[in-house]
């Protein structure tokens, strides 16, 4: 647990050390290393690249050409089918409502709890952290069935709102862990000064801690959003109706369910749509996300 918040991630920043002059002449070992790593990264991307190509091909072209062949002309038809016959737009809305709702719930719980633990040094702090770690490391399956039963007994089975609750609570555990880790590194003098000025606990949280932590909170929010978006088990159990299902569920339906053995290019297009929001979040906020994950860990 060392100083965590502002550690640079990715490539080391330039410092006027010998490394700089050393790097001027492109030396062989570095070039070789960089090329090898980049090649491996590209290898890792092959499945996604192939999916992108497949999604833009027509049915005939998909079955006639190799996976790696570029489409002769870009075919938007696959997406048309998805929005038409499968009504994927509706699923996208569901996913946004569920992922966003659960994310907000998590943050609403996690912020005050992390604050009490890290800044308030609540005496139950260590226990709260231990429990949070336990919650996100224990298997979800061990609570999934009771959650399913509860939804039936409350008559909320199949309701999107009911999916938000368990996801939000489990996400809150992750949020408490990460946020308290970051809050612990806030300068104490700042908080003590505000306390001397007569700030209440609530105003400390809303006026000082929250604005300072806004970037971190946003990152935690994005991480939670992405993991909720990708969630499958709880939503698989709780959402039997196609009209309330989330995108990943709907896409596996495209392959197995009513459209059993759907043509590959259609599955590819659906996969792309399902992964798109997470991909966008990642590409736009890459540095911040990576920093968020690593800040919670160090």
């Amino acid at each position, binding site marked *: 647990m060392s100083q965590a918040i502002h550690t640079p991630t990715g490539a080391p920043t330039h410092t006027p050390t010998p490394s700089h002059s050393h790097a001027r002449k492109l030396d062989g070992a*570095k*070039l070789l290393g*960089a090329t090898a790593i*980049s090649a491996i990264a590209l290898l890792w991307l092959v499945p996604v690249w192939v999916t992108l190509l497949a999604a833009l091909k027509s049915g005939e072209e998909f079955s006639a050409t190799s996976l790696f062949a570029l489409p002769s002309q870009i075919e938007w038809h696959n997406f048309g089918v998805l929005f038409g016959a499968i009504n994927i737009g509706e699923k996208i809305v569901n996913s946004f409502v569920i992922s966003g709702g659960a994310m907000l719930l998590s943050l609403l719980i996690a912020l005050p709890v992390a604050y009490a633990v890290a800044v308030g040094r609540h005496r139950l702090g260590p226990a709260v952290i231990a429990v949070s770690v336990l919650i996100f490391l224990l298997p979800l399956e061990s609570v999934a069935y009771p959650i399913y039963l509860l939804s039936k007994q409350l008559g909320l089975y199949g309701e999107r709102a009911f999916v938000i609750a368990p996801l939000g609570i489990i996400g809150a555990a992750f949020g408490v862990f990460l946020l308290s880790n970051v809050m612990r590194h806030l300068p104490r003098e700042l908080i003590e000064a505000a306390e001397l000025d007569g700030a209440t606990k609530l105003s400390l949280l809303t006026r000082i801690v929250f604005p300072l932590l806004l970037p971190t909170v946003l990152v935690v929010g994005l991480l939670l959003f992405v993991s909720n978006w990708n969630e499958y088990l709880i939503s698989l159990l709780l959402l039997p109706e196609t009209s309330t299902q989330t995108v990943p569920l709907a896409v*596996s339906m495209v392959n197995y369910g009513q459209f059993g053995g759907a043509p590959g290019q259609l599955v590819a297009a659906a996969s792309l749509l399902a992964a798109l929001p997470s991909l966008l979040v*990642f590409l736009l906020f890459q540095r911040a996300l990576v920093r968020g*994950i*690593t800040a919670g860990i*160090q």
Partner: protein
Amino acid sequence: MFFFSMLAWNIGLSLLKWPGFGPGTFIGLDNYVRLARDSDFWESWAHAAWYIVPFAVLPTALALVLAAVSIESFIGRWLRKLAPLARSGLFLPQIVPISISALIWLGLVDAAGHVQWLKEPTPALVLVSVFMLWLQTGFAYIVLIAGLSRLHPSLLEAAELDGAGRWQRLRYVMLPALRSELFVVLVFLGAGALKVFAPVYYLTGGGPYGSTQTPATFAIGNFFGGKSVGYAAAVTTVSALVIALALAITFTIARRMRARR
């Protein structure tokens, strides 16, 4: 609170003989006795133990090598521009929903004309393992890279000038610096391996003939296969206990070791 009341409910269910509808009968620990005699259950744990290798150990080892090479290679005006590419490429599998990436892999296997891989036990297990490696390397990579970038570059160069080879720099300079990162990554991924569900469920469903089955897929099959909810609840209760126990042991050992230093 919510989580633990659900956990308690699950334990309660595990004491019942109940097919998922109608009234259940209380049968005490009978489900656990049955479990202890169920070879499928033991086999699922053997697989879970194996999955620690492709889900935790191999990704961490590969990521360590990749991170060590990256930190010494992505230096200089041009080469450092490649660092984000490496990072996003490796991390991408963490971002795509697993249900989707499994679908993509199935498509690749199909297109390559190797569908029979999924129908034979050993190739199916290998495929699931490779998929796990693909999934988890990125997570370990970004954590380790972040740890390494705390090292001052001059430290590595000094070691190089002193005649330390690549391996020695990794062993004596980087590894000691990465102690806490490696611990966290291995704990996260190790616990993940013991409860792994999605990569197996979406790629093979636990088959063929249970050859890739994990405790989690085994339990879900029992919960909703219309067989026995009580029995499945017993499976997941055991999983939760095993993981909690493993975590407790790991953290105790870690604390002892830290105290000794």
